[in-house]
C-alpha cells in the first residue's frame, strides 16, 4: 500500500465544465521513503496537483488517499496536513513570525503541542536544515536559500512523514538552490522523509528515485531518471528540456557514435564519451 495514492483526479479552477482542466485524470502512487520529482511546463498542473496532496484543494472527481485517509474527509483535514507538509515557492510569504525560532514553532503551536516538546522539535528541525545558529535572527535579514531552509524547518517541526515542495528553488540563486536541494536529499536519506519535489530544473530532477513528467494536466511519462530522460524525442515533442549531457549523448548517437546509456550528469557523460571514443 503506497503512502499517498492519487486516483484518477480531475480538478478545474473554472466552474465552466467546458474549460480545460488544471488536473485531468491523474493517477499516481507515492511510496513511503521515496524521492519523487514532478516536472513540466508552467501551467501543466503540477502545482495544482501538489495542493491536492495535503487537502488544500479537493478533487472535482477521483480521490486522493493519504496514509489511508481520504482528503475529502473534513474531519481528517488537519491530520493529513500534519502528515504531508507543503512548502511553497516564495520563502518570504511562508515565514509568519519576526524571529526564526518563533516561526518554526508556529506549526507545532497550532497543533497544541506542549511547550517543552515544541522547544525540542524547533531545535531539532533547525539543526536538520543547518540553521540553528540563526535561530534568533529576523527572517528578512536572511538570504533566499536560508529563508527557504527555515520554511522547510517550519514544516519539519510538524513532524510530517512527507514533504511536498512546490518549486522551492524557483526564486533562489544557484547557491541557494544547492543549499535547499542538498538539505532535501539529506532529509530523505537520513530521516527517511518522503519528498515530492516539483521543479522545472532538470538537474534537480535527475537526483530523484523517480521522475514524473506532466503536460496539459496529465501524466506524460514516469520512471527512473534514466528511463525518463532517455526518451529524448518524447520530451522534445512536448517542448521539455532534458539534461544537457543527455541531449549531447542523444545527438552524438544520432551521428553514429556508439553510446549505450544516456548519461544524466556531467561526470557520467565524460566517462561514457571517453569509452565511446577509445
Amino acid at each position: 500500500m503506497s503512502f499517498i495514492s492519487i486516483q484518477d483526479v480531475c480538478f478545474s479552477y473554472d466552474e465552466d465544465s467546458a474549460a480545460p482542466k488544471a488536473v485531468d485524470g491523474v493517477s499516481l502512487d507515492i511510496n513511503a521513503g521515496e524521492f519523487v520529482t514532478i516536472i513540466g511546463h508552467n501551467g501543466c498542473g503540477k502545482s495544482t496537483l501538489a495542493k491536492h496532496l495535503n487537502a488544500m484543494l479537493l478533487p472535482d472527481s477521483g480521490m486522493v488517499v493519504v496514509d489511508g485517509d481520504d482528503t475529502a474527509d473534513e474531519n481528517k483535514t488537519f491530520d493529513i496536513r500534519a502528515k504531508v507538509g507543503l512548502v511553497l515557492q516564495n520563502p518570504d510569504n511562508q515565514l509568519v513570525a519576526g524571529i526564526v525560532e518563533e516561526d518554526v514553532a508556529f506549526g507545532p503551536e497550532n497543533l497544541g503541542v506542549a511547550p517543552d516538546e515544541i522547544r525540542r522539535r524547533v531545535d531539532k528541525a533547525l539543526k536538520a536544515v543547518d540553521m540553528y545558529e540563526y535561530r534568533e535572527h529576523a527572517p528578512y535579514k536572511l538570504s533566499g536559500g536560508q529563508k527557504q531552509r527555515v520554511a522547510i524547518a517550519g514544516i519539519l517541526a510538524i513532524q510530517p512523514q512527507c514533504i511536498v515542495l512546490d518549486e522551492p528553488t524557483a526564486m533562489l540563486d544557484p547557491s541557494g538552490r544547492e543549499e535547499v536541494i542538498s538539505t532535501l536529499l539529506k532529509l530523505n536519506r537520513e530521516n527517511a522523509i518522503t519528498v515530492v519535489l516539483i521543479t522545472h530544473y532538470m538537474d534537480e530532477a535527475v537526483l530523484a528515485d523517480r521522475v514524473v513528467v506532466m503536460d496539459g494536466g496529465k501524466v506524460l511519462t514516469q520512471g527512473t531518471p534514466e528511463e525518463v530522460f532517455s526518451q529524448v524525442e518524447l520530451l522534445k515533442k512536448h517542448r521539455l528540456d532534458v539534461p544537457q549531457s543527455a541531449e549531447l549523448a542523444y545527438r552524438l548517437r544520432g551521428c553514429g557514435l556508439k553510446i549505450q546509456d544516456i548519461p544524466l550528469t556531467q561526470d557520467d557523460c565524460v566517462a561514457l564519451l571517453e569509452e565511446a571514443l577509445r
Partner: protein
Amino acid sequence: MVRDVSFGQYFPTKSVLHRLDPRGKILMFIAYIVIIFCTFNYVSLGITAAFTLAFLVLSKISPKFYFKSLKVILIIVILTSLLNLFYGSGEPLWQWWIFRITLNGIHRAVFVTVRIICLILASSCLTFTTSPTELTDAIERLMKPLKVVHFPVHEVAMMMSLALRFVPTLLEETDKIMQAQKARGADMESGNLIKRVKALVPILIPLFVSAFRRAYDVATAMECRCYRGGAGRTRMKQIHLSARDFIAFALTALMIGGVIVCNILLTATI
C-alpha cells in the same frame, strides 16, 4: 533609504529587560506615559528622565539605534517646542513683531522637548527589547477579558504580529517598485506637493496589488501549517512573572511615587 527604519525592530541582546514579562512591560510603559505628562517641575522631570536613561543602559543596545529612532521625529520635536516657546504667558523677556518669548514659554518648551524625547526613547526601548511575538502574545493576554463581549482577541493579536512581521518586507518591496518606476522615467523628486503626491500613485497601486497577492500566499502557508484560529493553540515561549518582574514593578512604583511627592511638595514650574 526607506529601509533605514529602526522603529519597531527587535534586537536580541539578552539583557535584563529582554527577560522581563512582556505583559508587565506593557503595563509599566502605560504607567510611564501617564506619569511623564504629570511632571510639573524640574525635579520630577529629572526623575523620569533619569529612569529613561537607566532603561536605555539596561537594554544593552547601541545608542546608535536610539538616535536613529529620534531622528525620525526631530521635526515634530522642534515644531512643538517652538510653538510652546512663543505661546507662553506672563512678562515678555524678548519681543519682535508678533513673536514674544516669556520665561514660562522657555520652561514649556524644555518640558515638551524632554517629554517627547523620553517617550520615543522608552517606546523604542520597549520594541527593541520585546520580540513582536512576545508583544502580541502579551497584548492578547491583557485583552483576554474583552472576550466576554465577543471581541476577537486572538485574531486582532495575530493581525498585529503579521503586520509587524511584514513591515520590512513591504518596505523592501516599495523600494523595488520605486526603482522600477524610476527606471521607466517616473519623476518623484521634482514638482510641487500635488505633483509629488500624484507621482506616488504608480507606486502605491502595484504595492497594494502585490500585498493582496502576498496575503493570499501567507494564508495558504498558514493553513499548510495547520493554522485554525486561536482555539487549542499552545505557545513555545511561556510567559510568567518572576522575581525580577516584581523588582521592576517596585522601581516603577518608586518613580511614580517620586513624581507625585515632588508635585505635592514643590511648586509647579509650568
